[in-house]
């Protein structure tokens, strides 16, 4: 304190002397406002080289040399939509069997071999494809191709492992049936894809008991063919080396010429529907609402991406700012576009407080209506574009994400320009283009799925004109009109 009292008068005296040179506020001018950015740097995408092997297997190599790691993705270009009508889940079940043992290797042997090269292996199935992802250290390429070829060419489909997979899939589906986001999305897709093969991907645990070994073998025999597959390798290797090595391990994989059925685009939903699914003990309410965007051309995709960004891409978008920041209804509110080979789905997801379900749905519909009817101001369009362009490189930064992006572009046959001209395509979008798209697609006639605890929500659901109540296995229980609520 003593020191301070001595210094201060001197300090003010000094300031008076130098008053013209030193401003009283002791901060540099540049701190007062944000600096201007430099020009946007060029995005150089890694080269993707492709070749077709003699048995019809399409091979792509994405060159990246900054980590001694390789990511391998094998995509079987047939997914859940091709499961037999009576046995939905067959595609996923078949995919899950591949690492469960071969004629000579047990499940444990395979796991030992994978982990011995520091590897990780995973499987996923969508309506359009099954994907096997293998990440390992770059010295392990031969070993990984050896394991992969054994899994692909000699899967054993033993009864013991079929029972194990059935059990683990069953418990996984039962576990997920208590997750409101999973239940809501599954119910939304179940209704949107009502007469379409994609509906098969919304199966529940009950179907698993019907799937037998012959279903799996028949699916495997029909679709696990090199001329119905793509292999994408990402890492420090070139196409020549990759072709040589992949041919060595997979050249005995026999092609089978067969016409695979073409999947037509599904029709969009044509009227607003309110659906309720009860999950007991759930405190909050999860809302998923959306519609099919079909057919989705490449020209329409980019304006739709910008529209999505303005509406609900991030916390700075309209839905979040309105439902959470302004009205205080929601914990979150976002929108998304999910791509499939035959269509797209545009959907909104939100978690809200029970007492404001009706207000939240109405406010979301108002936001959709506004975006469909009023041209979006240019500054909002520019902000959305700035986000999308800035964020794109982040989406392809890891080997995993990069190879997933390339794999999906190839699986959906979107064309190389889908990503190589991403910046240019986004730059060209203006308010007019977004407005045209908003009017072209039926984003207003959505299916609204509300998931929550019936005991808490019953009073609030009566505010809707009509509600269809489904159980969490996708079966309609009853419909109830506003005047019928007790």
């Amino acid at each position, binding site marked *: 304190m003593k020191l301070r009292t001595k210094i201060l008068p001197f300090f003010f005296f000094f300031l008076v002397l130098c008053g013209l040179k030193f401003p009283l506020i002791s901060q540099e001018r540049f701190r007062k406002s*944000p*600096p*201007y950015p430099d020009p946007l740097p060029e995005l150089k995408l890694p080269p993707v080289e492709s070749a077709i092997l003699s048995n019809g297997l399409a091979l792509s190599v994405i060159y990246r040399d*900054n980590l001694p790691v390789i990511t391998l993705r094998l995509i079987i270009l047939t997914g859940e939509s091709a499961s037999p009508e009576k046995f939905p889940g067959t595609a996923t079940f078949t995919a899950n069997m591949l690492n469960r043992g071969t004629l000579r290797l047990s499940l444990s042997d395979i796991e030992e071999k994978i*982990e011995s090269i520091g590897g*990780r292996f995973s499987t996923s199935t969508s309506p359009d494809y099954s994907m096997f992802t293998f990440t390992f250290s770059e010295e392990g390429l031969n070993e990984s191709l050896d394991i992969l070829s054994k899994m692909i060419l000699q899967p054993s489909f033993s009864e013991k492992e079929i029972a194990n997979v059935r059990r683990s899939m069953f418990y996984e589906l039962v576990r997920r049936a208590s997750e409101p986001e999973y239940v809501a999305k599954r119910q939304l897709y179940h209704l949107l894809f009502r007469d379409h093969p994609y509906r098969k991907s919304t199966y529940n645990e009950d179907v698993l008991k019907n799937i037998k070994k012959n279903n799996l073998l028949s699916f495997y025999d029909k679709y696990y063919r090199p001329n119905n597959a793509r292999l994408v390798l990402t890492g420090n290797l070139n196409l020549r080396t990759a072709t040589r090595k992949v041919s060595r391990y997979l050249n005995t994989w026999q092609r089978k010429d067969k016409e695979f059925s073409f999947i037509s685009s599904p029709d969009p939903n044509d009227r607003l529907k309110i659906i309720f699914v009860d999950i007991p003990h759930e405190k909050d309410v999860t809302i998923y609402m959306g519609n099919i965007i079909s057919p989705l051309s490449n020209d329409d995709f980019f304006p739709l991406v910008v529209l999505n960004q303005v509406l609900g891409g991030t916390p700075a978008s309209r839905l979040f700012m309105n439902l959470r920041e302004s009205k205080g209804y929601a914990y979150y509110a976002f929108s998304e576009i999910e791509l499939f080979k035959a269509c797209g789905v545009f959907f909104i997801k939100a978690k809200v407080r029970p007492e404001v379900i009706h207000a939240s749905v109405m406010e979301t519909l108002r936001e959709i209506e506004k975006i469909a009817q009023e041209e979006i101001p240019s500054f909002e369009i520019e902000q959305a574009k700035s986000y*999308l362009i800035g964020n794109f490189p982040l989406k*392809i930064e890891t080997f995993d994400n990069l190879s997933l992006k390339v794999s999906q572009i190839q699986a959906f046959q979107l064309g190389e320009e889908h990503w190589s001209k991403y910046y240019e395509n986004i730059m060209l979008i203006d308010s007019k283009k977004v407005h045209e798209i908003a009017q072209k697609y039926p984003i207003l006639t959505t299916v609204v799925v509300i998931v929550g605890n019936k005991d808490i929500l019953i009073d609030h659901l009566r505010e809707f004109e009509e509600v269809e109540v489904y159980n969490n296995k996708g079966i309609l229980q009853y419909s109830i009109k506003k005047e019928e609520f007790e």
Partner: protein
Amino acid sequence: MSKKEVLISSLILFLLLSFARGQEEKGFPFPIEQYKLKNGLQVILSEDYYLPLVSIVVAYNVGSIHEKPGKEGLAYLLENLMFQGSMNIGRMQHISFIQRIGGELNAATTENKTIFYQTVPSNQLALVLWLESDRMKSLEINTSNVERMKEALIEEIRHRKATDLYLESSIFFDQLLFPNFTHSHPVFGNEASLREITEEDVRIFYSTYYRPNNAVLSITGNIDKKKTLQLIRKYFETIPKGKEITPLPLVKFPEKKSIVNTHQDSLASLPAFFLGYRIAAPYSDDYYPLRIIDYILLHGKTSRLYKRLIKKERIAFDLSGGIEERRELAAFKIFIINSNEIMMERSKKAIFSEINKLKTTLISEKELKKSKNMFKMDYINQYSTYMERSIFLAEEYMAKNNLENFPKELERYLAVTPAEIIGLMNRYFTPKNILLNVKIK
């Protein structure tokens, strides 16, 4: 030479000395240059031109071990306050500035560090330096901000306690495992301690620890080194240095003795237990091979404990754990959830039996190689993105006060032999362990 010339020459010399020039360092898996500003801020730059992005990390050498009893949660509170505005940046604007340009950001507090990180398009480097320097220089600390954030964190604690099964037991176990308050209390504090924190506490904590001489600025990405250094100097060099911080005394584990305790957990739905071993200090000679032992026992579907308890005998419902560091201390933790108490006892026996096997029988070269390969992949993946690399470098620097050993560090982990494993198992995995049985209410 005139007096004026002497003055200018001295000034140049002073500037040159005060801004130690970095050199590209050899032996690293990627380029690195280090600098120290005259106010003590440590700068690490790593160029990578693959993508037009840059990741900026500001890490402060402060965490929950710097908190006093009764003020737990102060470090985490301050991390959150760093987003509540500074002299030239409004509340939450830091987040909106980054998100508007497509960037991603987050922050984290541990027992001994607080890290702020973001990745943005590389043409926006200056924006992030402007944002980070403003909150390092002039954070807005006022009653309204402090009280609002305290309430938010209390709500977060309530939510954690209502949803995070076994959290209560885990906190209790840490109190048994670590020797004192400093190392054992949770980073997020508790409701009572957060209420006790005053605006003055926050000010003192901020002015003591959030200073350039107690921080590392780590930048990875598509940068022009010269220009980046100019920008760093512009935004950070005039931030005054803080007082020298007296390092906290180093703590040792007390004499080994076995501890067995029981805790009734109000949320737990299945019986469980925690088992802990106090092991060698981080980055000591024994610590490196112990990390590989962690992989032999617990990492992956073919690790010894996973194979025995989950796959072969199917006696455990869930198995997790590994080595946990708290500055100068490290412990090996195992957490098992069982379907009933019989399975719990069988699980304990199976774990002790696996530990005994490693104490008495040489591990095969094949199995050891597998564990080393898995470790190596995880080690490399720690710097697989620009953000991860920036964080990794900042943490490495803060843990060892330099990066000198980094080029040989992976080799050090991988050098362990089967014979050494037997020795280490006998030294650290003794019956003098810490066991907490979790009972359901």
